């Protein structure tokens, strides 16, 4: 009996330690964001004297936060919608027709192989294409790229899901003279709700945080998304930690909120994606 108590005590201690290590950086950021410069100089760990919002005001004004938030939303929202629409259609058709179409089987293989390609290999050619098409520093150019690099993985998630849905319902709708296109949107797509939520939640998180593509395509001040804005902002304001952390916290809120609401779907997406690949 005693042995069990000691091991469970040890277990709880380990757990608390792990939780502390994981939460410490975020907690420290929250604390620091409320402190004035002299306060921070005195002590890093102490609680702020007053919970004043000066740093937040400063961050919003100086980092041009609202503009970069607007850019991020303008890029991420349409991208996620397009990804869900396109990849659900393509996942559906691969799942249903790849048995009798060599082209679709090939498409499935090409998508799978493309998951192995590192982004670095596309960096220079994409820059070149965008330069000649005058798409550099445009938000729609950014959307094309985000969607294009996400399609393969999200289609892949849909294929697995569609295969698990019985096709009798669709068949009976065809019999009644429904076109395949209408049939997909009216009958199949609503059945894909769970996987659509997963794809949307995962990509909202990933695209919101995208750095690799944005750093190549969005060089001009007025089109920068939050991540890329912060990359330059943090470089400039290392002396004023309070304000930089206020900016960091502000940008964290939307993604963490998205995760909290969509937790179930995100967790599911990661596990399913890992098992299938």
């Amino acid at each position: 009996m005693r042995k069990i108590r000691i091991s469970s005590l040890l277990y709880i201690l380990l757990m608390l330690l792990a939780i502390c290590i994981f939460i410490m950086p975020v907690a420290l950021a929250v604390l620091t964001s409320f402190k004035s410069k002299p306060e921070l100089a005195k002590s890093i760990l102490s609680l702020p004297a007053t919970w004043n919002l000066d740093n937040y005001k400063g961050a919003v004004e100086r980092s041009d936060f609202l503009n970069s938030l607007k850019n991020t939303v303008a890029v991420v929202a349409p991208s996620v919608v397009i990804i869900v629409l396109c990849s659900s259609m393509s996942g559906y058709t691969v799942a249903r027709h790849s048995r009798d179409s060599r082209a679709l089987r090939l498409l499935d293989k090409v998508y799978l192989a493309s998951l192995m390609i590192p982004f670095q290999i596309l960096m220079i050619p994409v820059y070149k294409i965008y330069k000649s098409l005058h798409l550099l520093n445009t938000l729609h150019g950014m959307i094309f790229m985000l969607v294009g690099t996400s399609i393969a993985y999200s289609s892949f998630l849909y294929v697995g899901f569609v295969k698990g849905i019985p096709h009798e319902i669709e068949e009976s709708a065809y019999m009644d003279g429904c076109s395949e296109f209408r049939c997909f949107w009216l009958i199949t797509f609503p059945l894909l709700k769970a996987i659509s939520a997963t794809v949307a939640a995962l990509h909202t998180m990933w695209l919101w945080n995208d750095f690799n593509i944005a750093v190549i395509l969005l060089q001009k001040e007025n089109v920068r998304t939050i991540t890329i804005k912060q990359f330059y902002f943090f470089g400039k304001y290392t002396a004023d930690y309070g304000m930089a952390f206020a900016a960091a916290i502000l940008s964290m809120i939307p993604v963490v909120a998205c995760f909290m609401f969509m937790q179930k779907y995100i967790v599911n997406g990661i596990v399913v994606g890992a098992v299938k690949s």
Partner: protein
Amino acid sequence: MKKRSLTKYLFALPGFCFFAFAMLIPFMMGIHIAFTDWDGVASTYTFVGLANFAAIFRDTRMYAPFFNTLEFALLGTIIGNLIPLGLALLVNSPYRRMSSIARVIFFVPVCLSSVLTAFLWRFIYHEFFPKVFGCRNILGSTRWVILGIVLIGVWNTAGTNMLIYLSGLKNIPVELYEAAKMDGASPCQQFGRITLPLLMPSFSVCVTLTLTSWLKEFATTLSATGGGPGGASRTISIYVFDNLYKYYKAGYGQAISLLFALMLIVVGLLVSSFFRRREIEL
């Protein structure tokens, strides 16, 4: 019937257009650029054959990024799997409420961008550790900087691997442990003889994913140190990026990344087949 056979391709078309524009065409073009001396700015360039590839092997500036990348991959794969496995074992426990809270907490860093994470940790290394524990900033040391960045990256991504290990642990039938306990197996024996072998599928996914993602390491390092101090944490990816934006040698950079991608695919296939062979069917 004819009409239906066409629709099935129409369904795949919109997605494929985006894919072709963003990946397929750049990929094809990349192969072409690797054989030219394009500087990244000019509209004209000449075909130089294999000169770029020959230059890679003579480039002394290439050594450091190459070995740094290997060090990143080695440290990142080891630490980036041991810690998530430990977390998964902690979370997979009889204390329901605590472990479900812990699972959420361990996953929160995954939501943060690598730029943000790197900044948080730069503050911790630079201000918090020296003032509270009195140790030096490891991001400023040429010897330890890679370990420092790996710890940042592991904090950032541990949640993903933890989930994969956790789902692996949940798939192990409880009866096996009960039977082992009856036969008098110690907890260590149970872990070594039941848990580890049955986790092989999770290992093969996680090790392959972490290894290839650390070989590609780019964003965290660029925002944590920019490749410094003195190039001590510069990776191949950053070197490719520098060839485009700093040295104006896009053709040469592309040749490096082409060779690098090839290496990555070979390594990925080798590692995943290594683990696949050790998987056990129940």
